[in-house]
């Protein structure tokens, strides 16, 4: 199959259309449409971000992030609302070490994990302070925090923070001797 980007001037309300074509339908399209062939290489460049970084933890706004130091202060403080803390990554990693008081839901990169997350938070007031975290792998490669963040925002939660873990939970939390719990 030849993959190209076909930009035409037709479409609903005169909008541009972008579509892929096969060699079998290309001839009819060329006959009827004014086509600008951009080429596979450019198509790849344009579409690469969608496929290379589908989870894009990096796209979570910085205003929604919480550094480990900030969370430690919250945990140790006697004042203020304590957040509901949810780990949205690996159960094996969670049982070895997790933020004290946090709950395990399931990898939010899976639909079953997201369902568990939605089920857990559904009864809660939408201004509930919630912190989610994973720590499986480097931030830009984490497949779990962005889907979890998106799911909570879609449910209407307005006070969600994501614990920013740059490398992994071991390096950025445990090794810094931040408070840690084990087990279920």
């Amino acid at each position, binding site marked *: 199959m030849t993959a190209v980007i076909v930009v035409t001037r037709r479409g609903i309300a005169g909008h541009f259309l972008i579509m892929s074509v096969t060699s079998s339908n290309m001839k009819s399209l060329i006959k009827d449409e004014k086509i600008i062939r951009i080429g596979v290489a450019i198509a790849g460049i344009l579409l690469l971000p969608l496929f290379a970084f589908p*989870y894009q933890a990096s796209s979570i706004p910085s205003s929604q992030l919480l550094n480990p130091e900030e969370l430690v202060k919250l945990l140790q403080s006697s004042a203020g609302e304590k957040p509901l803390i949810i780990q949205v990554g*690996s*159960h*094996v*990693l969670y*049982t*070895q*070490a997790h933020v004290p008081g946090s709950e395990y839901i*399931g*990898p939010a*990169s*899976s639909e079953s994990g997201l369902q568990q997350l939605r089920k857990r938070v559904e009864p809660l007031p939408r201004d509930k302070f919630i912190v989610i975290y994973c*720590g*499986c*792998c*480097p931030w830009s*490669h984490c*497949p*779990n925090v962005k889907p979890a963040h998106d799911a909570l925002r879609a449910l209407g939660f307005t006070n969600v923070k994501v614990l920013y873990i740059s*490398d*992994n*939970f*071991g*390096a950025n939390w*445990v*090794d810094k001797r931040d408070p840690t719990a*084990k087990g279920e």
Partner: protein
Amino acid sequence: MNRHRDTSPSLRITSAEHPFAPEFSLPDLTGKTLKLSDYRGKVVLLDFWATWCDPCREEIPQFVELQNKLGDQGFQIIGVSVDDGPEPVRDFSRQFKMNYPVVMGNAQIGELYGGVLGLPIAFVIGRDGRIYSKHIGATDISLFNREIEGLLQAQGPFPASK
């Protein structure tokens, strides 16, 4: 040394400290019990991973190639999945044509190996059953290739410095 951050191309354990790889016994994807000690005499790459871990997914096809290339020289990869259940792992194994055994990991094996608190983590174990290197995070396959070939050829412990 921060044991969870691979700040150098290879996080090496010095020649003075090559501990024995902790023994474990876990079921593989067919339900059969796999013991690490069954592979004594082979060079083993023990890889902790998960199906949803992107860096792991990038490494595994390269591991499949490495197993094909070096398997008949006494090299064996063992995958330890930290997925919550075996079903997605079986699907993944079929899709990626994994040609080495995969066991389902748990917190106990994680703690035996010093804490698996990030993915992927890979240990290179010599024929003598000792750990010669540990790699945290995705690692260039050429580095694995060099270490493993060195251990396959070595008569004694793999030299710590190059």
